[in-house]
């Protein structure tokens, strides 16, 4: 950036760096103020982890990003304002949210769940042959990431195990071909090995598809393993931000905010 570049490339570089830009974000539920002015940016193609204790506002942050919770301030994705839009409009702009507790459609089959993910891509205006073929190709791609889903493609989602449901939820979100993937506590209620597998897949997706990911996690160690940058939230404010490696090293500071955390276990 110190090079004498033209203004436009500099602006482009800035746009890449501020692919998702959150500034002065306040949000809450009714009387309860949860977020107290957040500022952070996520570069395109980056995995960003949001860590913090219970009730810090991690989930609320994600919900504000995808329109499930109203907020004040500004959230731009690739320069487009996201605040004030409904979840459905945010999805149209390429934001795919994997909600806490998965939110799979339990009466639908695995494949139907995945097809719901492609709902927007098969709309009346875009119902081209090529798009339909692309959706089928994407189904295969998801099944390649999650072979277990292929085996169970005709089973009701409600009959899957917790780990499989979480994989389905991630796969469904990917069917949207999102530019921003929001993952809310993907490890919740899953066996450690399953969680690790899931995180590896998220890493692979990020590397292969260049999908920008924001992941909220209690399990700081796992999240820091795949994240490029991390932010630590405490009572609705950012208390620590930096490259994931640095946050991990900075064990002492992190311990204050993450409690006697998994971070120390890593050291031990």
């Amino acid at each position, binding site marked *: 950036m110190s090079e004498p570049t033209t203004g436009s490339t500099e602006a482009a570089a800035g746009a890449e760096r501020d692919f998702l830009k959150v500034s002065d974000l306040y949000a809450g539920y009714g009387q309860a103020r949860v977020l107290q002015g957040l500022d952070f940016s996520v570069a395109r193609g980056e995995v960003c982890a949001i860590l913090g204790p219970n009730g810090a506002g991690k989930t609320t942050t994600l919900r504000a990003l*995808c329109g*499930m919770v109203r907020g004040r301030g500004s959230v731009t994705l690739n320069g487009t304002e996201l605040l004030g839009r*409904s*979840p*459905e409009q*945010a*999805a*149209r702009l390429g934001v*795919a*949210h994997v*909600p806490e507790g998965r*939110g*799979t*459609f*339990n*009466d*639908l089959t695995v494949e*139907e769940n995945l*097809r*719901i*993910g492609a*709902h*927007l891509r*098969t*709309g009346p205006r875009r119902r081209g042959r090529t798009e339909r073929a692309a959706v089928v190709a994407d189904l295969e791609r998801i099944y390649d990431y999650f072979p*277990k889903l*292929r*085996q*169970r493609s*005709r*089973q*009701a989602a*409600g*009959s*899957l*195990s*917790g*780990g*499989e449901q979480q994989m389905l939820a991630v796969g*469904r*979100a990917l069917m*949207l071909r999102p530019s921003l993937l929001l993952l809310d506590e993907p490890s919740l*209620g*899953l*066996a*450690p*090995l*399953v969680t690790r597998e899931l995180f590896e897949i998220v890493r692979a997706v990020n590397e292969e598809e260049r999908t920008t990911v924001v992941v909220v996690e209690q399990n700081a160690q796992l999240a820091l393993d795949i994240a490029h940058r991390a932010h630590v939230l405490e009572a609705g404010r950012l208390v620590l931000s930096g490259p994931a490696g640095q946050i991990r090293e900075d064990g002492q500071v992190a311990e204050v905010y993450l409690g006697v955390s998994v971070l120390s276990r890593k050291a031990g």
Partner: protein
Amino acid sequence: MSTITASLGTDRVRWLRPTLTVLVAAAVAVGAPFYFAPFQVFQLTMVLVYAVALSGLNLLTGFGGQISLGHGAFFAAGAYTAAVMLDRYDTSHLATLPAAAAGCFLLGLGFGVPALRLRGLYLALVTLSFAVFLPPLLKRLEPVTGGSMGLTVNKMQPPAWSGLAEDQWMYFVVLAVTAVALLLARNLLRSRVGRALLAVRDNESAAEVMGVRLSLHKTLAFAWSAMFAGVAGCLYTWVIGFVSPDSFSFVLSITLLAGLVVGGLGSLYGPLLGAAFVMYVPSVSQDVSEAAPGVVFGLLIITVMFVAPTGLAGLPGRVLGAVARRPPRTTAALDRMPEAESAPDAEPESQALSGPSETHTPADPAVVDAEPVGAPPRTEKE
């Protein structure tokens, strides 16, 4: 590759049985009017009429998860549309069908709006108000609707070439419309719109996050559903040849909902069974007790709900399930890979096993409880 061929093979198996069922059903349906007496043919025709209305209600309640106690009113609107057109404007019978369908679709669209803000019992109450207020309105609009006296219209006459009696011809016309309606409902559910509808029922906020427009799909569900009820009403006018406000009291709306629940919510052929229930059970209960047919009707509903909580349509599955001890909707048993077969499965199957079999030890629940925390053995096999 082997996966693909395997799934193709099972696809054929999966298609064979429904095709046979449909063929047998079609043969029975076509043969019936030649076997039964005219009055029985009339009753069968009415079963088909109710089946159309119930399949519409099924779209809304069974698949959309919204309760309507106002479908008798949509039914009435369709019936009166047909009757007024036949009586005042002397149109052909067939012309009344698209008019009733379109009119009720629009009416449903209008009623879909409160459905956006209200849910469950509150929505049921609003729709009930429609059902309650329509009959008095029909009485008031005497110049058009004939008031309390109702309207008598000409019945459809069988064309000479068919050589059929009036009741038989009527039966076949209604059968054709019903077949088209049921097929339409089925295809609607398998389409993108249907999937979205089911997703909204299962998990509203997750569906919205996936880009499903809640308002559009909820309103459309109401409109489609009302359209089916309107078509059924139109058929009613064709079959009965007479409409009056008292035929469409709010009791009709409740009967329709009860019939659907008894037949099987969210099942494709539940509406047919429910329609048979609505048609025959009142007359059967009249035979059992002339003094209080309503009591017998009510008791029968309770019995059905007790024996088959998922409705009559779910009964065979429940019986089979109890016999085979397998979880519902695992049609995947056939196309499962061998390695998947050997892998121990998640909760549902262990639940299915935990019936009367001796493998169910007191320690079992603890194991199931501990599962999410992640017993290593299970995850290793995964």
